[in-house]
């Protein structure tokens, strides 16, 4: 057993209101620079929809993630040899058109325009070339399914849905959607790291954050194709790739990452998971239908004395083990099993988990909300407006069982709480639902509390980074006294 700690995340999709506050918080801190304007390390997509960059989930097009070839795990985009031949021209690299061309407005025109019959306007100008731009698309053009049905209809997750189901999705007055906020998943088996010819990408041993060494990046661009979530971006100005850093400077000082901290819907949870690093490869090789369970089994019980002992022996700090025991992520993923990894069939073993959304499912009951005459108390989950197969394609590697389990449990908790607070459903039915959904009363209470009444400290259990020890190990702080300080001190200026 090789116990390591990983800062992991849960996004509770039922709570996301699609306000994009998270994206803006991130943009203002990290990607408001030349060359990075088009990047959204955090973005919020409307599902069904094609997302950002367009149709990123379509791995026929982008070749992201891993695949099994005769029992061997290999990157879809590049074998080792192909990396070398792809170095001049990467056949699967998205271009700016797949994202969008960033723009600002020529506000001066409002003041300087010569007198004329029309009101002057602020004309959009490209932030790349500085020329006038005809805006055709943006990073979030289909927000709330606005604009055109083209986006929703081309969602890769609609695979395997019948034509009727597809039609139903966009039927007038039955239209349904939910939000899908995304950041880097800080995977256990990251495709970007494995693809980098220069070894610039790496996973931090202590907390599992995946970072990109700017000094070692040579712009070979393999990472961009290899990440199936398209969360590594190319900075066209500095000639280096960049990605979400999970706000590690904030995490190291005990603060939640900016997108987590600012989240209006309070949908985001962050905490430590202990996992067995020895199993990474074998788990990533499992067949699709076993992946979710195997991935979950890698996560170790932080209360198990054997795990604690192995963790300590591996240098995991007591304070980190303590954090792991309080981790909200552990509860959602492991104890309650209602948070699922996105597209685990890409086999990068993401460490960001999603609680599948319930609202559109419940809302399918028109008018009488308390109707449950059917013997099958969960019937409306299967008759929901969002076809189960669609959610299963997103969160269940195409298999419905795990998603159904998560939704049933959530629904049972709701009925149970409804019986208590509103009282218009009877407790007996609620209890029966709990049992059928594999949930106890205590568990239901705990899920309810952490979902609805969670405080800041319940949501974010950030382990101390013990940076003080790291600095002592690496260099003598006194050497830097009255000098330039630590770290990357030169301006990130583009090479000649």
């Amino acid at each position, binding site marked *: 057993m090789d116990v390591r700690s990983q800062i992991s995340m849960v996004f509770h999709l039922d709570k996301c209101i699609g306000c994009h506050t998270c994206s803006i918080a991130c943009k203002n801190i990290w990607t408001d620079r030349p060359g990075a304007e088009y990047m959204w390390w955090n973005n919020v997509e409307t599902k069904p929809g094609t997302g950002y960059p367009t149709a990123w989930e379509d791995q026929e097009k982008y070749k992201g993630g891993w695949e099994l070839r005769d029992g061997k795990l290999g990157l879809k985009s590049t074998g*080792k040899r192909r*990396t*070398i031949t792809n*170095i*001049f*021209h*990467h056949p699967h*690299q*998205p*271009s*700016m*058109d797949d994202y969008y*061309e960033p723009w600002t407005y020529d506000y001066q025109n409002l003041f300087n325009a010569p007198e004329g019959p029309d009101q002057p306007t602020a004309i959009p100008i490209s932030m*790349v*070339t*500085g*020329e006038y731009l005809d805006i055709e698309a943006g990073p979030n053009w289909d927000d709330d399914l606005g604009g055109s049905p083209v986006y929703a209809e081309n969602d890769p997750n609609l695979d395997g849905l019948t034509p009727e189901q597809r039609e139903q999705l966009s039927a007038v007055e039955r239209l349904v959607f939910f939000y899908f906020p995304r950041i880097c998943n800080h995977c256990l*088996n*990251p495709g970007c*790291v*494995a693809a*980098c*010819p*220069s*070894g610039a*990408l*790496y*996973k*931090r*041993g*202590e907390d599992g954050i995946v970072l990109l060494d*700017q*000094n070692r*990046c*040579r*712009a*070979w*661009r393999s990472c*961009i194709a290899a990440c199936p979530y398209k969360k590594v971006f*190319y900075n*066209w*100005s*500095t*000639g*280096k790739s960049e990605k979400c850093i999970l706000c590690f400077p904030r995490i190291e000082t005990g603060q939640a990452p900016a997108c987590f901290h600012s989240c209006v819907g309070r949908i985001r949870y962050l905490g430590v998971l202990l996992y067995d690093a020895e199993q*990474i490869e074998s788990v990533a090789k499992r067949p699709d239908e076993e992946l979710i369970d195997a991935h979950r089994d890698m996560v170790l019980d932080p209360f198990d004395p054997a795990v604690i002992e192995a963790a300590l022996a591996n*240098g995991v*700090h007591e304070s980190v083990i303590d954090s792991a025991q309080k981790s909200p992520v552990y509860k959602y993923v492991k104890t309650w099993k209602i948070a699922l990894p996105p597209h685990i069939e890409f086999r990068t073993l993401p460490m960001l988990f999603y609680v599948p959304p319930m609202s559109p499912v419940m809302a399918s009951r028109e008018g009488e909300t308390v109707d449950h005459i059917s013997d099958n108390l969960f019937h409306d989950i299967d008759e929901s407006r969002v076809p189960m197969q669609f959610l299963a394609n997103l969160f269940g590697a195409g298999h419905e069982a795990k998603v159904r389990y998560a939704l049933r449990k959530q629904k049972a908790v709701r009925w149970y709480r409804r019986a208590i607070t509103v009282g218009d459903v009877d407790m007996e039915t609620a209890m029966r639902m709990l049992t059928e959904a594999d949930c106890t009363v205590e568990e239901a209470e705990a899920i309810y509390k952490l979902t609805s009444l969670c405080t800041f400290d319940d949501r974010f259990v950030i382990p101390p980074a*013990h940076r003080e*020890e*790291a600095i*002592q*190990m*690496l260099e003598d702080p006194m050497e830097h006294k009255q000098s330039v300080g630590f770290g990357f001190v*030169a301006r*990130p*200026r*583009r*090479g*000649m």
Partner: protein
Amino acid sequence: MELTTAFLNLLFFAILPYVALFTFFLVTIQRYRSQKFTYSSLSSQMLENQDHFWGLVPFHYGILTVLGGHIIAFLLPAQVLLWNRALPRLYITEFVMLIGGVLTVVGLLNLIIRRVRYSKVRRVTSLPDWILYGLLANQVVTGLLVALLYPWGSSWFAATAAPYLWSIVKLNPDLAYVSAVPFLVKLHVVNAWLVIGFFPFTRLVHILVVPNPYLWRKPQVVRWNWNRNDIRNTN
């Protein structure tokens, strides 16, 4: 007249090479040490994805072939002469190098057109880039012309250029060979020294950081900021 020629020969074939080589080594190393961040291939594929292929791919395969040929003939002149003794082998060598040259010229032409044509790509093209394109264009066009006008270069390179280059390396420049070659060849040689001297001021430095440990390393990279066991065990 004689004197001026002798002086020019000295300037271009003995002094220039040392200035170029000196600059090359000094600035490349200094730049790597103080501005590591600027070592990048500065790819512009993300700004323009189609014509990129028709420029980058032929250019790189072409130049690698041609450059490889030059280096082999420089390192192993005797073996090259021996190899070329059988006519079919000579033809094959010449043919491969010619194809390489044509690919390079076509690729470079496409690259330059692409830079001019797309405003997004122009945005990331600097003055050193334009100078470099000029130098490279001169280099590959003269090279191709030399190959066409003065055949069997693979043999005469080994017999004339290689000894000249070696004399430079041995710090004892021998200009006898190089002063006798046609003007076009001289131009090619002088331009080569210019490219070498200008090298560290351009994006060409990416040649020096091509990935090599990649093929051998494990797929996943984990970096530890510190080893907690070491810290604990010090007491």
